[in-house]
């Protein structure tokens, strides 16, 4: 019997031939689930090439590669992820961490190709059939890093609006560790920082709680970390990859944390600068602002003896005589400056080059000269009425506040300008009004509308918190004067500030006018340079561009071989460009002096 069954059983299967099959028909046409993790998609214009996907991939399946048509620029490396599907395990960590949300996975999981190399490609750069598929895995609403920054404690407006004490408290260790932990260490920020600071590296030092290492990283590129940790324009934060879908990392406050935590008496030991061998060469530096101090620092490390000639009674330039104490307290300023002084730099205060000593004498006595004299001459709007005695320049008033000179404070003040200097004088005068009258009556007006005001956002917000009225978008026309007294400022609506070629060319609507009442007016529309310290004889050899600026090479050497120039008069205006210029000039000066001695 058994044998017959064995022979017949294959034929019994034939009875099922008319039944509906149970297996899936055409399996290649079956769609993946709605949230299936299939082949990647990348919105290539949204992607910034931060490489965080590559970093998190546990299978080393992702390479960052250059892609045609994608340029390397501020905030974008120009690289895009290329995925090796021989390694990808479809875990989607790359999608979950993506800082811009550009990377996702389609629900397509079938693709047939005979060439294994075709299974390595750059999603978004090579058209794939699933690029337009909506379904698949997208960045979820939970976060692999915290998108919100650790809040910084600061004085409330009513605690600060009558005094010049520092507003920002600084991070505690717990706060700094939490904030540092948000950094994905992509390093996109480094290119944008004018000094190209090792930002991910010093944030890593915070995570490792190795603040001495952190300080060494800061001083590699920036000898003013207490200062920059407070008042840097933090261009780095504007390109931070984490800022695309959340708050950028508080890079500036983290820098301040490192500097604040290291005691000044340990600096030389930590930075290994206790015994610097002198090389017997001397460099004269004109001006003790960020550029001059930076040059002095890096030249001192190379063994040069530096002498800084400073017109004012103390060092720091605009950092002391421009930036108010509530933003940058003197003890923080002095901590950075004293360290540079301790490396052997000599400061000659109250010494004006061109008057007390000539630039030719500097050339004779020193091997090279660096000038970082900044922009200290306030520019005027030159509208009718600006020659009145109660019209002032912001930079002059800010300097007088620091010098302890008497500063005029009227009951009603109008400030013209929309940059950080305008905010500094607005907020300083608001404090002085509060001290004198118990109330604030100050209007600050700028040509620029609010969205394009050059001042840092927090300056505008904090100024308003301190009861200053900031009214952007108006152009000054004339100052109204009656019986020899200022009555106010006539303004007209400003429609646009720049033309299509991004040139300064304001357009006004003469039909929309306004009047801001005032008995004192402060102009803060920019500063110019004062080159009177360079004698006419030397100036003859100094090449200027058509707009009157000194021409320098990449090491900030002017057309006079022994004269190097940097800082606000060349680039900026801000502290961090000054620091970068001073550093580069120090290298240029070293090369120049070494070549001379050959």
């Amino acid at each position, binding site marked *: 019997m058994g044998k017959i069954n064995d022979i017949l059983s294959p034929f019994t299967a034939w009875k099922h031939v008319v039944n509906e099959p149970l297996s899936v028909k055409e399996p290649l046409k079956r769609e993946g689930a709605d949230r299936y993790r299939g082949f990647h998609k990348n919105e290539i214009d949204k992607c910034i090439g931060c490489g965080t996907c590559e970093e998190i991939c546990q299978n080393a399946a992702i*390479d960052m590669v250059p892609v045609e048509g994608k340029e390397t620029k501020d905030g974008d490396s120009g690289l895009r992820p290329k995925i090796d599907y021989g390694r990808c395990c479809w875990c989607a960590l790359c999608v979950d961490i993506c800082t811009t949300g550009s990377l996702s996975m389609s629900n397509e999981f079938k693709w047939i190709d005979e060439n294994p190399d075709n299974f390595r490609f750059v999603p978004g750069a090579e058209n794939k059939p699933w690029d337009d598929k909506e379904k698949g895995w997208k960045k979820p609403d939970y976060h692999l890093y915290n998108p919100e920054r650790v809040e910084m404690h600061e004085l409330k407006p009513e605690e600060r609006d009558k005094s010049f004490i520092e507003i920002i408290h600084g991070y505690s260790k717990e706060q700094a560790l939490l904030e540092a932990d948000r950094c994905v260490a992509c390093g996109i920020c480094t290119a944008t920082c004018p000094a190209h600071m090792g930002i991910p590296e010093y944030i890593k030092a915070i995570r490792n709680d190795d603040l001495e290492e952190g300080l060494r990283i800061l001083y590699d590129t920036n000898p003013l970390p207490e200062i920059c940790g407070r008042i840097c324009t933090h261009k780095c934060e504007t390109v931070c990859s984490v800022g695309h879908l959340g708050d950028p990392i508080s890079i500036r406050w983290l820098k301040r944390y490192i500097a604040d935590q290291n005691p000044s008496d340990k600096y030389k030991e930590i930075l290994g600068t206790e015994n610097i061998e002198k090389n017997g060469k001397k460099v004269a530096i004109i001006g003790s602002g960020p550029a001059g101090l930076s040059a002095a620092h890096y030249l001192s490390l190379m063994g040069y003896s530096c002498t800084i000639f400073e017109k004012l009674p103390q060092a720091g330039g605009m950092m002391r005589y421009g930036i108010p104490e509530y933003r940058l307290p003197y003890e923080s300023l002095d901590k950075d400056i004293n360290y540079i002084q301790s490396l052997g730099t000599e400061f000659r205060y109250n010494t004006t080059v061109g008057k007390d000593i000539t630039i030719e004498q500097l050339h004779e006595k020193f091997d090279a000269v660096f000038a970082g004299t900044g922009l200290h001459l306030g520019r005027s709007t030159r509208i009718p009425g600006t020659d009145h005695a109660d019209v002032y320049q912001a930079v002059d008033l800010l300097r007088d506040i620091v010098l302890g000179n008497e500063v005029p404070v009227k009951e009603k003040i109008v400030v013209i300008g929309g940059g950080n200097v305008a905010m500094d004088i607005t907020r300083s005068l608001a404090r002085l009004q509060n001290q004198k009258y118990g109330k604030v009556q100050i209007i600050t007006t700028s040509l620029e509308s609010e969205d394009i005001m050059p001042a840092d956002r927090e300056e505008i917000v904090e100024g308003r918190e301190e009861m200053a009225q900031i009214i952007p978008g108006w152009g000054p026309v004339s100052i109204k004067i009656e019986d020899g007294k200022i009555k106010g400022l006539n303004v007209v609506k400003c429609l646009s500030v720049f033309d299509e070629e991004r040139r300064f060319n304001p357009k006004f609507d003469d039909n929309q006018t306004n009047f801001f009442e005032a008995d004192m007016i402060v102009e803060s529309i920019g500063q110019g340079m004062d080159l009177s310290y360079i004698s006419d004889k030397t100036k003859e050899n100094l090449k200027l561009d058509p707009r009157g600026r000194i021409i320098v090479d990449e090491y900030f050497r002017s057309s006079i071989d022994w004269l190097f120039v940097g800082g606000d008069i060349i680039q900026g205006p801000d502290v961090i460009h000054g620091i970068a210029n001073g550093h580069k000039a120090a290298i240029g000066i070293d090369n120049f002096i070494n070549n001379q001695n050959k």
Partner: protein
Amino acid sequence: MKELIDRLKTSYTVEDYIQQRSDLAHITVSKETAVDFISHLQRVEGYKHLVILTAVDWIEDGKFQLTYLLNNPEMKNDINVKVFIERENATMESIHHLWEQARTYQRELKEMFGIDFPGSPGVDKPFILEGWHDLPPYRRDFDTKKYSEETYFPRPGREKNDPATYMKQKLYPNE
């Protein structure tokens, strides 16, 4: 499912309960009561089908989470029984007497997480990894990237670029 949960709560200590969907509830019970609880669900409440038994490594808390996903074919709903056990020397009572196929899951968990199920038939036999001498690979302290870099050679023609270094080359090579 609410009624069922209330009924269960009278006999068992439910440490946590989440109703994710009308047909899916997560219930956390202690390691000691878990097997009794699961067999009650199977024999009394109609959860006859073991969909999956798997684990999650909560390394920061020093715990493994065991996930027993049970299905009630009549009611057409699922209960996910969650059990947290110590990560160190992780052991759990076997449920192969309730479902024969559980021993396969338990063998997998032993191999991939290092969770032991004493008495589970063949639990120490290799499952899919042959000649494995490293940490159990689903443990979060197993460095997958390091392992893949050491074990597999990169495909020829691959190039790597660090974004910060690449930007320096492109934008400021001399600084």
